[in-house]
């Protein structure tokens, strides 16, 4: 006769009513444990519980979400015969005293839960087993032998037990609590880069100084993790003037400028975003445009729901306008690079 025991919460020391509800995960972050009392001797027991608690080191997240479907399916399959057995067993056979011995038995190492090994489910005795069965940590010969403690063959029965999710040990992977990836769609944003260091390498108008920008644009998530961004706005970097224009020769670069950039971004995680793009900065020097082109790398993190903070690095060329007189001027390029902090607010 099978001994059907109510599950016991080891941590709290009280029994928990066993219902089918315990077999269904309430939420993926903290699934209720289904323990298969098999002390490592039944193959289905071994394969059921551990994967739900494992953590994939490569992907850095729990397998809980992936195995949720299998989890429910297995629970439902196991619940049917268990429910039949529960409804057909007499009250006397599920004696509460049996919990005490089972609770003190060693836990099966293959199931990192609050489960207890079951003792001879098909034993004809109605009382608790005098000796707890060997645990999964015992030697392999014991595991290989299906014999019970009293010489009777061990039952190939696995009984699912449920415990309250709130009493489950805190073994879940906290990485699963990371926010989800942004959904597909387009969102507008404003970007502020209040603190930057911009350098221009030139014999005459080379200069290192602060640069600031204010921009607006849109972010389009066109595939999971992939983004396309554009933004445009105004900025300022320290201007440099060399020579005397009235005397026939002068150079100028920097000052206020218009900036536009496009990005292709990829989410390295749900918080960590990297963008690679190209930008152009166009200023006015002696009445002439002095465009420059630079490659841009953004590394940022999403925080406070709609904010993004990061570091922007760019390198390329800037334009330098040389004036040889009132009507004579020409364009040249100089190496330029810089870095700046940026903050972005995405509108809902």
């Amino acid at each position, binding site marked *: *006769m*099978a001994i059907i025991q109510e599950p016991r919460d080891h941590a709290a020391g009280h029994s928990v009513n066993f219902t089918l509800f315990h077999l269904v995960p309430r939420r993926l972050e903290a699934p209720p444990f289904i323990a298969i009392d098999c002390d490592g001797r*039944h*193959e*289905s027991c071994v*394969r*059921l519980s*551990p*994967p739900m608690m*494992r*953590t*994939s*080191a*490569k992907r*850095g*997240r729990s397998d809980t979400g992936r195995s949720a479907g*299998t989890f429910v*399916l*297995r629970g439902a*399959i*196991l619940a*049917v*015969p*268990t429910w*039949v*057995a529960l*409804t*057909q*067993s*007499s009250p006397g*056979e599920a004696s509460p005293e049996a919990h005490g011995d089972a609770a003190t038995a060693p836990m099966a190492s293959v199931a990192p839960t609050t489960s207890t090994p079951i003792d001879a*489910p*098909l034993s004809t005795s109605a009382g608790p087993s005098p000796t707890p069965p060997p645990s999964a940590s015992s030697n392999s010969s014991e595991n290989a032998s299906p014999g019970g403690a009293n010489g009777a063959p061990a*039952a*190939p*029965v*696995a009984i699912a037990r449920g415990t309250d999710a709130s009493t489950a040990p805190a073994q879940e992977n*906290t*990485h699963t*609590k*990371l926010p989800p990836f942004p959904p597909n769609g387009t969102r507008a944003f404003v970007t502020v880069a209040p603190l930057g260091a911009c350098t221009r390498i030139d014999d005459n108008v080379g200069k290192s100084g602060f640069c600031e920008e204010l921009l607006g644009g849109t972010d389009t998530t066109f595939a999971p993790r992939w983004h396309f961004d554009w933004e445009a706005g105004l900025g300022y970097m320290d201007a440099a003037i060399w020579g005397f224009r009235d005397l026939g020769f002068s150079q100028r670069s920097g000052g206020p400028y218009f900036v536009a950039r496009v990005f292709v971004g990829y989410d*390295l*995680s749900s*918080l*960590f*975003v990297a963008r690679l793009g190209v930008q152009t900065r166009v200023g006015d020097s002696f009445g002439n445009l002095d465009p420059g082109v630079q490659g841009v790398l953004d*590394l*940022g*993190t*999403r*925080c406070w729901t709609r904010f993004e*903070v*990061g*570091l922007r690095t760019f390198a390329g060329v800037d334009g330098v306008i040389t004036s040889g007189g009132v009507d004579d001027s020409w364009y040249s390029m100089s190496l330029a690079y810089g870095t700046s902090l940026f903050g972005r607010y995405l509108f809902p």
Partner: protein
Amino acid sequence: MKHGALALALLTPALARAADPPAAPPQETDASPPPPFVYPALVRTLVGLGRATRLPKDDDAPSVVMTVEVGEHPLGGALGTGISLSSALDSKGLWSVVTPGLFATLDLTYLFLSGLWAYEPPPFAGRLRVGSRLGIAVSESYRPSGDVPYAPPYMLIRPELQSFVDLEWPLDRRQVYSLVGRAAIDTSVNLSDAFRWSFSAGIDYAWGQ
């Protein structure tokens, strides 16, 4: 009761076995715990090339840069601190600098993965760190013999600030060994004058629990 138990005995293993997907081959990642986000202690060695700024063109030549660092990663790996010893040797033999000092780094990867310390960062392979090393530079320089014969060496001791960016990539599964690339510039403490810059690469060995 016996019928129910018998049905339970016969049905459950078969149903459970049928519900199981094909057994996947055992993976090492499931058996071994994932490595920590960062190990507490580190030893780093770097070798590279650099140049000194503001030298006459006749004396300008590449220099060999070597760095050894020993330190730790406090605050769960977000920061790095320790002692550093670096040297720069002119390939022409005109000058050499040895700089001991203390360094501090900020792991941008940690910040970006954690949402500025809002979440526990998930495992991640690469590392991007920015840092500075404040040290006392002891340099000795020589005038070329063609300029000033028998000129005595000139020794200069001054504080220097080295700012650097490190890019790390692990070399093994446990992420104990990492390949490190560094771009660095040595400046005055107030950042007004750039003395030298360099690019170097090396190995980072980390350990601890």
